[in-house]
């Protein structure tokens, strides 16, 4: 009786081990490849970078190409009145890929796409000793500010979206 029970338990265990392998059709392997391709596409992030020079002044002057930021520039940086865009760049980054930009103050900015999770893209930012990981919702953006440049301050506008 004991031997029979052992035999039954053994066959059940073997069945449990063999069943998933037997049950997995060839097409599911293909769909897994498909899944990783989709995951790769899912993790692409479109990063838009504007390098802006902000200077104090009396008259408000905002370059037309960044006029859409006016409301935020004036409210977030009230001590600065002149805003000039020095460069603009947009890149689609695969997961773990980086955008590197040489900034006019001699430093280098690096933005790395760490992938999407829960509707937010994780972006690792590294610029002249500042290191940050910011999670950005699709279509949203943020500023990085504070470092001096040519009588004013360097302002980086970073927007992230799904391509």
């Amino acid at each position, binding site marked *: 009786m004991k031997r029979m029970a052992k035999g039954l338990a053994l066959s059940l265990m073997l069945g449990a081990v063999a069943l998933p392998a037997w049950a997995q059709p060839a097409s599911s392997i293909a769909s897994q490849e498909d*899944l990783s391709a989709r995951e790769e596409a899912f993790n692409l992030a479109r990063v838009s970078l504007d390098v802006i020079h902000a200077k104090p002044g009396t008259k408000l002057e905002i370059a037309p190409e960044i006029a859409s930021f006016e409301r935020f520039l004036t409210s977030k940086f009230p001590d600065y009145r002149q805003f000039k865009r020095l460069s603009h760049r947009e890149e689609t980054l695969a997961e773990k890929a980086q955008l590197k930009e040489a900034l006019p103050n001699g430093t280098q900015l690096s933005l790395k796409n760490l992938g999407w999770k829960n509707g*937010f893209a994780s972006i690792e930012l590294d610029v002249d000793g500042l290191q940050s990981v910011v999670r950005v919702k*699709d279509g949203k953006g943020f*500023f990085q*500010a*504070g470092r001096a440049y040519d009588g004013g301050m360097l302002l980086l506008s970073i927007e992230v979206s799904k391509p």
Partner: protein
Amino acid sequence: MTEQELKELLMPYADGELEPALAAQVEQALTENAALRGELEEIQTISALARTAFEAPEADLSGVYDGVMARLGLQEVKPVAAPSVWERAKTWMGEFFRFEHPWALVGGGLAAAAAVLAINAAGTSEQASTTEQATIAGTEGPRRRGAEGEIKAMGRDSGIIVEHLEAQKGKVKAEFDDDPEAPMVLWHVVDEENTVAPKGL
């Protein structure tokens, strides 16, 4: 699969609970259906915010504190006066004499005594909360700020979460706005550069 069925699968999909084959179907539908993507993002955003609310390990409260102080400054804090001894006596005497049966007088006496105790307790707690409010409104409390060189901060608005913030030199601050449309600013200020920094840096 109908759109309704797909919508019902979004929550388990976001939680990673779907079978791979079913998850693949949902993903396929997501690539084709913008409205579905929008729903998924809403679900994910809500989950992320809820999770962040519970997980937030450390917070830079310097900006928050200023904001609260500013708001408190705009409001007049009107202390609630504790009832006078005469008012308290009137209350319990009234209760005492409203009883019609003699046996009720004993009960009424006990009730009045309880009322006096309750009034006393209420008065004390009101005074305590008033004092506390006055302390919050009237004093400049300590600010939590990271040390120079190694700073971590966390915060969020409707579309941004700062997970990590650190500088090898200078000071950093993640500045959020009450306006959910306004972008967050990651400030990195080095003293000797003399740039105009926000309050708290």
